[in-house]
């Protein structure tokens, strides 16, 4: 996790960083039948990015990140199904702001705590959100979920079509914008100071860095992005159910991020792709083995492959480079 990114590293975009976008555009043209799965993957990449920001870069461990995702989804759902606000961009904005506000309020409390207390508070807040959504049936639909959402064309021009083309490009565009923001952020002095807090908060205090303020900023931003991804999920599915809240979606997201690699930015890209594709094929046919499989994978990653898929790739390229240079020098 403690690889050097930031001031010590060239912040220019490397050619490999264009690959995900190239791939995403290719999928649009070559695999038109998979666009709805594609939108789902893009949505979860956005969600995983928001989690990577706080877990991977700031070192805040949370079991309740789905609160923000779920709140975002419900805000969009309620606006579209109950209040007649059909403009997707207004829904998106409202979801982001709502989740950001929840992040600001809960962060103010959570970030003062440490260890088990912090973990417990994130879990309790997320359980509370689930309970509210479950019981406030008049507005959330409770266990039946929210359906009958109406979503107008984006900017009045691009209608959400049956094949999911608009939805896919819309998700891709939003993900790209967020990626630009987050990438700038983590290569900025602010990003470096976050990693400083992750590695040793006491020293950051000692050199006079405003640790709490910085954590508040990143936590709120992360909540806002998670809210946006929740809104995307609601808009592309045109349905919101209780499964967006609680411990399980938070747990699944953690699995995705760990699988891809924590604190590497692109781990949040790789993880959801692998996880959701595997889920699409395996989960329906073998639900028991599927859960066993992700559990086992998680245990194996923790015991043997801390960096996830990207970590393994890194090791592989590092050892082949070492072998090359060894061959040249001999």
């Amino acid at each position: 996790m403690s690889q050097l990114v930031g001031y010590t590293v060239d912040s220019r975009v490397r050619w490999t960083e264009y690959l995900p976008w190239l791939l995403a555009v290719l999928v649009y043209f070559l695999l038109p039948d998979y666009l709805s799965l594609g939108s789902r993957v893009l949505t979860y990449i956005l969600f995983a990015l928001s989690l990577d920001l706080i877990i991977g870069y700031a070192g805040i461990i949370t079991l309740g990140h789905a609160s923000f995702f779920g709140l975002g989804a419900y805000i969009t759902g309620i606006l579209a199904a109950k209040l007649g606000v059909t403009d997707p961009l207004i829904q998106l904005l409202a979801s982001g702001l709502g989740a950001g506000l929840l992040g600001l309020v809960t962060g103010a409390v959570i970030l003062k705590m440490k260890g088990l207390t912090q973990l417990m508070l994130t879990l309790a807040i997320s359980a509370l959100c689930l309970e509210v959504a479950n019981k406030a049936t008049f507005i959330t639909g409770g266990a039946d979920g929210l359906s009958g959402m109406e979503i107008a064309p984006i900017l009045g021009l691009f209608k959400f079509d049956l094949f999911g083309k608009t939805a896919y490009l819309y998700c891709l565009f939003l993900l790209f914008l967020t990626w630009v923001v987050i990438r700038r952020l983590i290569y900025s002095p602010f990003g470096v100071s976050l990693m400083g807090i992750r590695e040793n908060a006491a020293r950051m205090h000692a050199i006079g860095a405003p640790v709490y303020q910085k954590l508040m900023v990143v936590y709120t931003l992360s909540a806002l992005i998670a809210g946006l991804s929740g809104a995307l999920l609601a808009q592309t599915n045109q349905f919101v159910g209780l499964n967006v809240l609680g411990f399980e979606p938070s747990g699944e997201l953690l699995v995705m991020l760990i699988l891809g690699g924590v604190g590497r930015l692109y781990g949040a890209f790789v993880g959801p792709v692998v996880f959701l594709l595997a889920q699409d094929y395996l989960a329906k046919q073998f639900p028991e083995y599927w859960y066993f499989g992700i559990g086992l994978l998680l245990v194996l990653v923790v015991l043997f492959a801390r960096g996830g898929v990207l970590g393994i790739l890194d090791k592989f390229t590092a050892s082949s480079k070492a072998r090359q240079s060894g061959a040249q020098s001999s």
Partner: protein
Amino acid sequence: MEIFLSSLVSVAFHGLAYGMILYVISVGLSVTMGLMGFTNLAHGVFAMTGGYVLVVSLSKFDIPFPLALALCFGLVALVSVVLERTLYARLYGEAELEQVLFTIGLIYMSVAVARLIFGTLQQPVILPEYLKGQFSLMGRDFPAYRVFLILFTSAIIAALWFGVERTIWGAKVRASVDNRAMAQSIGINTKSLFTTTFAVGSGLAGLGGGLGAEIVAIQPTYPFEQLVFFLIVVSVGGLGSLRGPFVAALLIGVTDTACKYWLPEFGAFFIYIATIGLLLWRPQGLLGKRS
């Protein structure tokens, strides 16, 4: 008034039974987390295993109830020692994130295994005849099994407290919780102490899961659904303490029962609110040490 009084007694009684079960399950978690600093989210897996052991030994093998309870403790303790030595021990002293992820992985695997073997339905508990029926006291009827539950868990808790506070083993455990490095340097073998404590804690969770199978339904999602309650008991009570979680478990047991009785439309809402409030007031838990 009479009706209110009788419902008050009923809530207190059922709340007490539930709270005692919660405590027996969670106390091991408090001690292991306090002793080893290991965030073990998979503690509920041990309780669920205990529950399944009890249900299966009663319904499939006709094992007498007392023996079945002993099996809950013994088997789960045995399994936990194997897990502790082979897997958990590798992650002592690691970052919290790794422990959290590792134990979430264990939960996923156990949920899958439970579903594969027992299906998704909850398992009915077949109680022996002598624990069925009602028990009359001062003109009121109480379910005999709950009465047994309260008495039996009280005895276990008394034994546990005696063990921790009056025996050499307990003194070593307390010393290691307070200051592990110092305990090691005066010759306490903390490694074997960890293993035995972990086994006792997990065994108690198994026993609690078995005893409470009638109250907290045994089903594959158990470790996920109950996790939040076990963690509340430990964090509100205070890490590494024995009495704190006891107070917390009784509080939760009674509050939860009262809410279900009088305000079912709010569900577990008040429990979560109270937890958040208590943790804000005392981040180290009710009886936890200030760090």
